[in-house]
C-alpha cells in the first residue's frame, strides 16, 4: 500500500472503474450481439440486444435438425456444423497427441544430453518457427500431392495431411517443455542411471511423471492451435464433409448466400467450448503463449 496518497485518488479510482466498465461493454458488444442474433428468427432481422420474439430455428439448424417454421416451411441445415466440429476435434486431438509425444522426447534430449549441433538446432528452431506456413503453401500443396500419389491417406483432401502438416509447428512446444525440464533437478535421474537404469527408463519413469503439468499445458496449447489453424487446412481440404470448422465457418457469410443468423448459432455452439477451455486453463496457457508469442 502506498504511503503517499494524492487527494484526487478517490476520483481517479472511480474514473478507472467507470472507464474499464465502459471499455468492457464495448469489447463484449460483438460477443453478446452474436448470442442475441442466434436467437432471432430469420437471417436478416434487426432488433435489440434482447430478441423480442426469441426463436430456436438457428440452433436447430446448427445442431443438424431440420426446422419447420410457423408458416410450415421446413428448412434443411445449410452446413454440417457438427461434422465440421467433429473433424476439427479429431484432427486436433490426434495432432496434439503426436506433437506432445515427439516434442517431449526431443525436449528431453535438448535438456539432458550433450550432442553435436545442439545449440545450433535449438536456435534455428526459434528462427524457423517465425516463418508462417501460409507462405510455403504452394510447396506444401505440391508435397502432399506427391505423397498422395503413393500413400492415399496422406494425400490432398485427407485429414492425415492436415495432421501431419501441423507437426511443422513443434518448435515452440519443444522450447516450452525444455524450459520446464531445465527447471527440474536432474540428480534423481542421475541416481537412477548410476543404479543401472537406461536413459530411456530415467526419462520414462522419473522425469515424465514429474512433468505432467507442463504436458497438459502443451497438449491444450497444441489442441487449440490446431483447431484454429486456417491457411493449411483451407488449401489441403476440399470436400464439404472433410472441412474443419475454421475453414467451413466462413461459408455462412458469402455475399450471395448470407446466413447471418445460422452463422451466429453455429459460432456460439462451436466457439463456446473452446472459449471455456481457454478461460479455464488460462493460468497455465498464458505463460506458454506469452513466452512464444504465437497469437497476435
Amino acid at each position: 500500500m502506498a504511503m503517499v496518497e494524492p487527494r484526487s485518488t478517490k476520483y481517479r479510482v472511480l474514473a478507472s472503474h467507470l472507464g474499464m466498465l465502459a471499455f468492457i461493454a464495448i469489447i463484449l458488444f460483438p460477443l453478446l450481439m452474436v448470442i442475441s442474433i442466434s436467437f432471432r428468427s430469420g437471417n436478416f432481422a434487426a432488433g435489440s440486444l434482447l430478441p423480442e420474439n426469441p426463436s430456436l430455428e438457428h440452433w436447430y439448424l446448427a445442431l443438424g435438425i431440420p426446422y419447420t417454421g410457423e408458416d410450415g416451411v421446413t428448412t434443411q441445415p445449410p452446413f454440417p456444423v457438427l461434422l465440421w466440429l467433429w473433424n476439427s476435434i479429431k484432427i486436433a486431438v490426434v495432432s496434439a497427441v503426436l506433437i506432445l509425444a515427439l516434442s517431449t522426447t526431443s525436449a528431453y534430449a535438448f535438456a539432458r544430453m550433450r550432442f553435436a549441433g545442439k545449440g545450433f538446432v535449438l536456435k534455428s528452431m526459434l528462427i524457423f518457427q517465425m516463418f508462417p506456413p501460409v507462405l510455403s503453401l504452394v510447396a506444401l500443396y505440391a508435397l502432399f500431392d506427391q505423397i498422395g500419389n503413393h500413400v492415399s491417406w496422406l494425400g490432398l483432401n485427407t485429414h492425415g495431411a492436415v495432421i501431419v502438416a501441423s507437426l511443422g509447428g513443434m518448435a515452440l512446444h519443444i522450447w516450452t517443455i525444455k524450459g520446464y525440464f531445465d527447471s527440474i533437478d536432474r540428480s534423481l535421474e542421475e541416481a537412477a542411471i548410476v543404479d543401472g537404469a537406461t536413459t530411456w527408463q530415467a526419462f520414462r519413469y522419473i522425469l515424465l511423471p514429474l512433468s505432467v503439468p507442463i504436458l497438459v499445458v502443451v497438449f491444450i496449447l497444441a489442441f487449440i492451435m490446431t483447431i484454429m489453424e486456417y491457411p493449411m487446412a483451407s488449401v489441403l481440404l476440399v470436400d464439404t464433409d472433410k472441412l474443419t470448422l475454421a475453414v467451413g465457418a466462413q461459408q455462412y457469410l458469402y455475399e450471395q448466400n448470407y446466413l447471418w443468423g445460422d452463422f451466429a448459432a453455429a459460432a456460439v455452439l462451436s466457439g463456446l467450448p473452446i472459449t471455456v477451455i481457454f478461460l479455464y486453463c488460462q493460468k497455465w496457457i498464458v505463460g506458454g503463449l506469452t513466452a512464444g508469442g504465437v497469437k497476435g
Partner: protein
Amino acid sequence: MITETLSSPGIESRHSMTRVFLKWGALAVLVAAALYLILALYAQREFVFAMLFLVLTASAVAVFVSKKLYAHRYIFPAIAGMGLFVIFPLMYTVGIGFTNYSASNLLSFQQVQENLLSRTYQSEAVRYDYQLFKTEEGYVFWLEGEHQNLTSTPVNLENGERSAPVLPVSGTPQGEPLSIREIIQLRGELSELTLITEDGRELSQASLRSFAAIHPQFTLHDNGSLTNNQTGVTYFPDQETGFYRDGDGNALSPGWTVNIGWDNYLKVVSDPSIRGPFFEIFVWTLSFAVATVIFTLALGLLLANLLQWDQIRGKGFYRTMLILPYAVPAFISILVFKGLFNQNFGEINLVLEGLFGIQPNWFSDPALARTMILIVNTWLGYPYMMLLCMGLLQAIPRDLYEASAMDGAGPVNNLFNITLPLIIKPLMPLLIASFAFNFNNFVLIALLTGGAPDIIGASTPAGTTDLLVSYTYRIAFQDSGQNFGLAAAIATAIFLVVGALSLINLKLSKIKV
C-alpha cells in the same frame, strides 16, 4: 518401477532379444516402404521429392543404427517433421520463385511431350457410315466406305469389350439394324470402342452414324520438333519460355516449367501493373503491422497499469472480461465482425444509423476497410499485450513509484520516466515477434475482407486491404492464371524480412541454450 524391470536378468535378456528383433524388423519395414516411395518418385521424374525422401530415410537409418548418435534418436522425429514441413517447403518455394511454374506451365517437359504425342484427331478422308446388328454372340458392325465395306466380329459391348478387328466384306448385311434410339442408349460404350482394320489402322466413332480413322495429332522428329499432322505446322521446343512454338511464335498449350532466373523479381520491379499494387500493398502491410503493435501495446499497457493498481477492487472479474477476446477462437470472432460490419444488415451500421444517421461502406471504401481491419485487430490483439505487460510490471520495484510520488509526479510522468524505460528492454523481442506475426496476419485478411476492395489496374488479384501474404496467396490460389512462380518470388522476399526480424530478435532476447 525401475527395480521391477531390473530384478530378473533372465527375463530381461529374453525381452531384449525380442526387442532387438522388433527393432530391426520395424526398421527394415520402414526402410522398404521408404525405398518404394523413393523409387516410385524417381520413376516419375520427381527428382526433388525423391531426393528429399532419400535424405530423410538415410538420416533416419543413420540415427537409429549408430550408437554415437544415440541422443539424436530423441530429436530425430521432431527435426524430421520440421525439415519436411517447414524447411523443405521454404526452400522449395524459393526455388519455384525462379521458375515460370503456373497454370499454363504446370507440367514437366516430358509430361508435355507425352501429352501432345498422345493426342489424336479423326480423319476427314477415311470415314465409314455404320450400322449395328445385334446377334446372339454380340454386336456386329457393318461399315460402309467409299471403296470397300467392312464388318466386325461380334463384340460384347455390355461386358466391357472395347476393341474389335474389322475385315473387308462384300454383299449386303443380313437382318434388321439397330434403331438410332438403341444406338444412343449404347453411346457410352460406342465412344470408347476402337475398330482395327487389317492394315492396323484404328477407327473410332465420329458421329452417331459414322466411324473414322484416328491419326496421331503430332509426329516427333529427331531434332525435337513436332509436326501437326492435321495442319502440317512444325513446332520447336522453346526452353526459354517453356512452350512449343511455330515459326511465327505461336505457342502450343500446355507449356512446361522452366527456369527463368530473376524474371519474376524483375517483373515485380518493372511491370507497372504489378509494381504499383505491390508497392501499395507493401506500404499498407508495414503500416498495418506497426499500427497494430502500437495500438495493442498502448491499450494493453494502459489496462495492465489499471489492473496493477492497488486501489482497484474486483481484479479477477476485470481480468477475465478483458482477456475474453483472446479466448474466443479468432476464426469465429473475425467472422462475427465481418457480419457486424456488413453495410446493410450489420448491427454496427444499425447503431451508427440510429445515433448519427450514417451508414459507412466498410467493405467497399479503402480507407474505411483499413480502419475496420485495425479496429478488429486491436480488439483481437490487446489482451495479449495486456498479459505481457502485467507480467513485466510486476517486476518493477514498488518503491520507485513511492519515490516519484514524493516528488509529486503524476501517472503520466511515472509512465514515461519509470515504467516504459524499465519494461521496454524485455518487451522489445516480443514486440518484434508481434510485428512479424501481424506482418503475416493472413487469417485476419482472408476471413474479414479477402483483400477487397480491389486495386484498379492490377494484372493480378490485388486488394487495398491485402497484406503481402494474402496477396501471394491470391496470386497462387485464387487467380485463374495461378502464377505460382510470381507468388513464390514475393514469398521469398517476405522470407527475407521475417528471417531478418527473427535474427534481430534472437540477438535482443539473448537466449541461452
